[in-house]
């Protein structure tokens, strides 16, 4: 069988076409959102919200309401609860997140076990992309279009929020409202993706594409193209592999994304392991020449000791989390300053 046949044979089936369409939509939306999440340092927040929507989805199912409704309610409930747990200053934010999302996730598991249902609610946990119906696909498409439109229309404000929330304040924007918008979109996106890879693995699609793109470019506008492109390619490959290997589709989608990240981590032209190794040995691509490089050298000679750590708490004490996430990708991106 030729490679072309391997590609086209699965596409004769309607269910495979629907699976590919649903996966691509979810991949694009998740990948776009992930660009902001990895820059703000909200990977763990993505994990939390995507797990915490489970009880909302199960309740919506039981009551015959749209999944997105329950998901948003519980996604935002999770954020409020995390803020409340963090109020007692003895509990760190990562602990607060861990307590809240596992508890809500557990509530979801219990609700699944007591909800009489014709379909297997276990599909919410692990995804059932090969069983996506026409109606499911329409719902995914509508939600994806909504998130996509809001993300693209507000992209400059969201990037400003991720980069410098104080300047957002300086021009009269509310960082808290922008953060809430991002979290709301996160909850809806979790619904889009959970039918594809399941609640447990949604977070992979919300982190890996942005992190991968981050290693490939220094321009945010390009991250917004690279992340969805890579994510769609990896997800489609995952679906085809699951057809041929007769293995879990959600698992394979994430596995391919993770594998792709590993490749980029090693091979990325500037920030990859090999490039950095070559740069350290001194035979790698030269640093950008010109005024900047010269300036940088002058700076390092003339540099005065900078201030010591400031004791005053300066961050916004009331909003959920501004730039305080635990897993910033930034540490792996070296600057070219000497």
């Amino acid at each position: 069988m030729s490679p072309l046949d391997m590609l086209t044979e699965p596409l004769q089936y309607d269910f495979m076409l629907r699976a590919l369409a649903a996966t691509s939509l979810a991949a694009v939306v998740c990948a776009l959102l992930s660009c902001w999440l990895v820059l703000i340092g909200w990977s763990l927040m993505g994990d939390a919200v995507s797990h915490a929507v489970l009880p909302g989805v199960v309740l919506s199912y039981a009551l015959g309401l749209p999944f997105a409704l329950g998901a948003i309610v519980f996604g935002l409930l999770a954020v409020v609860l995390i803020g409340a747990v963090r109020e007692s200053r003895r509990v760190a934010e990562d602990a607060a997140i861990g307590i809240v999302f596992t508890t809500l996730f557990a509530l979801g598991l219990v609700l699944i076990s007591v909800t009489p249902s014709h379909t297997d609610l276990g599909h919410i946990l692990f995804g059932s992309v090969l069983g996506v119906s026409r109606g499911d696909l329409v719902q995914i498409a509508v939600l994806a279009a909504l998130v996509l439109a809001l993300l693209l229309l507000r992209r400059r404000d969201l990037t400003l929020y991720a980069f410098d929330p104080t300047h957002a304040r300086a021009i009269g924007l509310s960082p808290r409202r922008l953060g809430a918008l991002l979290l709301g979109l996160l909850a809806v996106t979790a619904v889009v993706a959970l039918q594809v890879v399941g609640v447990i693995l949604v977070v992979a699609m919300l982190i890996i594409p942005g992190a991968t793109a981050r290693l490939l470019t220094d321009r945010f506008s390009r991250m917004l193209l690279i992340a969805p492109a890579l994510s769609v390619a990896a997800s489609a490959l995952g679906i085809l592999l699951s057809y041929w290997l007769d293995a879990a589709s959600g698992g394979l989608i994430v596995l391919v994304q993770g594998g792709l990240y590993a490749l980029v981590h090693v091979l990325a032209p500037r920030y990859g392991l090999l490039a950095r190794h070559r740069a350290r040995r001194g035979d790698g691509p030269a640093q950008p020449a010109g005024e900047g490089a010269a300036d940088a050298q002058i700076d390092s000679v003339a540099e005065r000791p900078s201030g010591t750590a400031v004791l005053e708490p300066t961050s916004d004490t009331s909003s959920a989390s501004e730039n305080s996430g635990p897993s910033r990708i930034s540490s792996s991106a070296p600057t070219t300053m000497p």
Partner: protein
Amino acid sequence: MSIRVEDLTVRYGEVTALDGLSVHIAAGEVTGLVGMNGAGKSTLFGAIMGSVPVASGRIGVDDEGPARARRRGAIGYVPQGEAIDSSFPVSVADVVMMGRYGHQGPIRRPRPADRRAVAEALARVELEDLARRPIGQLSGGQRRRAFVARGLAQGARTLLLDEPFAGVDKRSEALLVAVLRELAADGCTVLVSTHDLHALPDLARSAVLLRRRLLFHGPVAEALEPAMLARAFGLDPLAREEVAR
């Protein structure tokens, strides 16, 4: 045109960061805000920017509330170096364009006037050749100049700078001092926090010494007298008693 602070108190839990501060920062001159770490410099900025909850007291910027002044885009803010993720994938021109957002429609599509304002601001801090460079590839001094350019492009008449000279090369420092003095001469209010004193006489006409409350507000030369500095930095016996209490 000025910043007027009346009886401002800010608390973080049980810690009082600012205790009944009243001060009037005049327009038309650069004012240095001096104090050690924890003296309340960043807290004062935070209160003006609305990022820190105010326990009591009032702030006026150009005779209106700070929230209104911010909505008008009247306040420009240059953050501390370490407050910014320098590996963030934005270019110098991107950062300066953020200063124009308040002048643009809801999706922030740049118009020719915005591009002109960005180009002028970049020229003024001598970064026009580096406009397309990612900020991660700039030196500390160049990066600080980019943020000042953002305030220029914003057209802010009140400028707050938090430790702008920490880790900055001489050339950038001289350039920043010149630009800030020009702005003040033009009638802007410029407030610069620093615990680095040697740049002060060149930069500012008056200084505010802060230690959770106002210690001194007046000419820089008087502020830099040893006895005065000893009080600000907690080296005199009187101040030690005060802390012990």
